């Protein structure tokens, strides 16, 4: 196994409370995470590392700074463009479109 992964609660020394699932749609595909996760957290928890392309050379982009500074992680949430995935919490039923999908 490679890439990002969410630590399953039963193995977690931090013992997080079970907040229940959250389901979002990303480019038509439904992805689930946990209530309280950021959109980037849900994507990465599902193994996704990139969801955007750089403007000139089309290089893949995902999370880089993780703290809202670099704007690498932008995506569209419920028709609002340019939302930082690392900063925005996933809401139940959020409809996400990534630039990767809209470019194709």
């Amino acid at each position, binding site marked *: 196994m490679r890439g990002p992964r*969410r630590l399953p609660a039963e193995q977690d020394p931090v*013992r997080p409370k079970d907040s229940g699932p959250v389901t979002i749609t990303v480019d038509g595909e439904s992805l689930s995470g946990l209530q309280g996760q950021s959109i*980037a957290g849900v994507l990465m928890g599902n193994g996704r590392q990139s969801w955007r392309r750089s403007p000139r050379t089309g290089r893949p982009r995902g999370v880089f700074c993780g703290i809202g500074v670099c704007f690498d992680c932008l995506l569209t949430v419920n028709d609002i463009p340019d939302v930082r995935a690392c900063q925005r919490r996933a809401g139940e039923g959020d409809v996400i479109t990534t630039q990767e999908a809209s470019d194709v």
Partner: protein
Amino acid sequence: MSEKACQVLIIGGGPAGMSAARAALAGGAQVVLLEAGDALGGQFWRHLPESRKGGEEQVLHHKWRHFNTVQRELRDDPGCEVVLGAHVWAIERPDGGQAPAVHVMVGPPDGADREPRTYLPQSIIFATGGQERTLPFPGWDLPGVYTAGAAQALAKGERVAVGQRVLVAGAGPFLLPVVTSLIRTGATVIGVAEASGWKRLAKGWLSRPWELAATRSKAGELGGYLREMVHHRVPYRAGTTVIAAHGEESVESVTLARLDADWKPVPGTQRRVEVDAVCVSHGFVPRTELALTVGCTVDAHGFVVVDDQQRTSVENVFCAGELTGIGGVDLALAEGEIAGATAAGTQPRASVVKARNVFRAFAERLQTAHGIRPGWQTWPEPGTTLCRCEDVTVGEVREVAAATQARGLRSLKLTTRAGLGPCQGRTCGRNTEEILSSCGLLDPGRTARRPIAIPVRLGELAATTSSQREETP
């Protein structure tokens, strides 16, 4: 739009801001604490959201109990208003000694219909913290290359490990807690590469040991991380760094090389290591954009200049924490307390003034042992990305600089577009400045100067002005 007067307004809810709020309250002031995120704690005490609250979150934290105590105190104190989701986008300073107007959007990050508010404080304390500086190398923009702070945020705030086989590289003691967090989030850390060599580390950390004895809590914090590394047999290599990352769609391996004292790679020392993620942090830069908009004086390194009471060059404006120099949590807590007490018109405790001075000396050691060396400019190739937002390469910037002899950062920025993307040069600014100054372009303009501190949507701006008009009779 609501306008609200207050005595002390604190911007930033990390260790420095929380400490400032607590001290200002103790001094009898009425306090407003603005935090952009939806929880207090900042990057240092980044934690799980209330709904996933961990029973044992202290395993990822230093001074966790202190955080909880202060958070509770601030919540329970009727003199303190904590505003979460508060994004400060502009500060106006009217002439003639009137209170400055701090414009804030309150709501989810990058939301479209946030609530505009304006605060009119007697004093402002900036505690906006720092961000990491990552130096460019071939492949540094591949997915799978993260800042060390991203690895921390995902581990502490999400319980997501950025990879399974992770290398941590860069400079400074702040790499060590990243190792601990990664291990406790289920990742294997295959090593730590520290750019500074043993000689320099010894000079920074082993000279005048009696001074370090005073920073016992710091030593305890770092000692804990070191024990964890030894326990998990994580190799620590000094004088070594990542000079390239390889892969198609994401990182598959990195090239490590030994560095000389100037951080130039030593020929013949390169080797490839397989990884699925690498966390890189070469240092920190202060997040000064708001402090700059009100005119605070900064030093040659871009840190805000403060006096012994944490006062800036601007009347009734204070700064605390990483804005004034990179020194870690203990320094941030001490500076916050001094700023808060002074802003409330009281005397800070003598013991905390002493603590600040001790931890300032620690910050100097940090610079001696780990400060960025100019040899990094030999890592990037001409085709290496410099500005991630606008896809500008190191080679393009050097060429344009040489060809146009463009004087001044701004005209050069317009020609190359470096630093003009959505991040407004936050990520590449320092690196661009250093490359340009070595091309003979010395520009006093710091890339941190921006009229609007965070992106605001046009609709939100329009809403602000129309509601203002309605209020005017």
